[in-house]
């Protein structure tokens, strides 16, 4: 749980030192077993928030409690209950076989012999790294290394997993393996997952709740489905119609509320706000005037929704601010240091 959390950094600049706001007035509550996607453009403050949650950075103001601990003051106790994976950093011992990192971490986390063997078997099976245990880390592919990183992270069976771009650079199969592993942990053991990512495939495969941060401020907190619905307030239909029949139709459709229409050869693109008019009403109007050879409904994608929210202007920005339910809504001038 975070309430009014802020983090400022003092940075040197040619014009003298200045204060940069990485996270401002951030409020969030999460329950056990949830999987939360933490979204935001580069430099939005995602990684800084992750570091505040695990107690590596001290908050400038506000309150934060993770699993009942104050992360900054009780960092070492909290560390037993959480794990952090950074897609761009590695905690594997580079020149040594993968097994050595696991052995090392078992000592760091104070696991007993039987506990270590049991957890190792679990982690190895979860991420399918059994064949890699004897190989030096430097010889592994990116995908193999990422799986080993995740296996190393779950070795002490954490209750909270903080993942920062865990599948960056991985191929489809490797991503599938990682996603399946994370979903298993969540489903079977109630592990809470906090996923900071730009990979919408990861987000949709793992999370059911999304939190969006832009310029250090919370812009949205809700379900993924609502996020798409909120940001993409228009739907699109593409029709294939007989050539030459579109021009009259466009003028007719434009008289309907919120409808936009454009014709290009035999393609007719129609946009509309589903809250103002139904797709069936529009189709009825079209079919009264021409034949339809083909119909394609363009579903709004998460990626499109996020793109609109990152830009932040217009209706999408205002709606997102409402979605954040009083947690801010204004675009900050911050950057992630």
């Amino acid at each position, binding site marked *: 749980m975070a309430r009014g959390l802020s983090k400022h950094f003092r940075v040197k600049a040619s014009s003298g030192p200045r204060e940069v706001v990485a996270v401002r007035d951030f409020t969030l509550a999460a329950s056990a077993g949830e999987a939360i996607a933490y979204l935001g453009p580069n430099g939005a403050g995602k990684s800084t928030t*992750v570091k505040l949650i695990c107690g590596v950075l001290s908050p400038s103001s506000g309150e934060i409690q993770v699993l009942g601990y104050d992360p900054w003051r009780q960092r070492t106790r909290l560390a*037993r209950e959480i794990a952090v994976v950074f897609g761009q950093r590695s905690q594997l011992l580079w020149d040594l076989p993968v097994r050595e990192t696991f052995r090392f971490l078992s000592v*760091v986390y104070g696991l007993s012999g039987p506990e270590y063997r049991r957890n190792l078997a679990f982690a190895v099976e979860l991420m399918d790294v059994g064949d890699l245990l004897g190989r030096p880390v430097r010889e592994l592919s990116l995908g193999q290394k990422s799986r080993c990183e995740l296996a190393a992270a779950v070795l002490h069976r954490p209750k909270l997993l903080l993942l920062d771009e865990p599948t960056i650079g991985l191929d489809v199969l490797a991503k599938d393996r990682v996603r399946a592993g994370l979903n298993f942990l969540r489903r079977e053991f109630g592990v809470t997952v906090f996923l900071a990512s730009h990979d919408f495939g990861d987000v949709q495969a793992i999370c059911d709740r999304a939190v969006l941060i832009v310029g250090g401020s919370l812009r949205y907190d809700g379900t993924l489905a609502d996020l798409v619905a909120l940001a993409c307030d228009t739907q699109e239909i593409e029709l294939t119609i007989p050539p030459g029949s579109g021009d009259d139709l466009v003028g007719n459709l434009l008289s309907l509320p919120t409808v936009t229409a454009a014709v290009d050869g035999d393609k007719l693109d129609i946009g509309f706000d589903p809250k103002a008019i139904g797709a069936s009403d529009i189709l009825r109007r079209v079919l009264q005037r021409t034949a339809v050879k083909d119909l394609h409904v363009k579903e709004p994608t998460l990626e499109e929704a996020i793109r609109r929210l990152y830009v932040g202007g217009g209706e999408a920005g205002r709606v997102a601010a409402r979605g954040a339910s009083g947690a801010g809504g204004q675009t900050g001038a911050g950057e992630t240091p």
Partner: protein
Amino acid sequence: MRTALSAEARLAGAFFRAATLRCLDHWVTLLGELMYPVLKALIMVWLLKGIYQTSWAGASTAMPFGTVVQYVGLAAFAGAFVGFNNAFMVADRVKSGDVIFDLVRPRSWFSSLFAEYTGSRLAAALWPAAAFAAISLGLRLGLPWQAYGRLILLLPFIALLEFALSLNIGIATLWTQNAWGLGLAFTWARQLLSGTLVPLPLLPEHLRAAFYAGPFPWLVDAPVRAVLGSMGMGQAIAGLSAWTLGLLVLATPLYRLVGRRLRINGG
């Protein structure tokens, strides 16, 4: 207390294992680790021999040549033993942001660094020990057996002082972004002021006294002189302990001050 010490010892053991395996991973690494202190000491002896036989021939010098050779041999061992630059490693991790892995583990940063220092140091001490054996035999250091006992007794004190020094430098790197520069400055200061590069008894008295205003001569010069018998063991241990204690006491407020300034870029 016993549990904490045992956990610390286990972690140091894990670092020892990792460092030894890394060293044994390739023969070039092994050769480099083994040969560097030996070559350095041999070159030092050879240069000093040249200086003694030409410029200072017949002149009254601070130390007879045999003692200089003993000093250089012992300094090579002590220097290689404390030469492992923990501050450099920490600085490197702070600069790259990988220090985050130190800080997301269920151990205080001090305890984690101490275990890392102790384990890695013990692993690396194998090679200076081999170098020392080679120098002892090859150059006939002619040390009495009691000298070896004194050396073994002083080693833990030297290591503790080295750790306390590198801990403070490591903490300071959390603040400054110029972590590499700080590590380099520390290395040079230690090389020049400790007696690793030039035996301090060969320097003018006032310069030596100035060096002794800082902690560095206690890393090499004082223990070597204690082993050779020109400084009392009690005085050496007292000096080493006082500096260690002072630096450890300094580390806590320093960490409190700069820990909040830590910046780690990106994920």
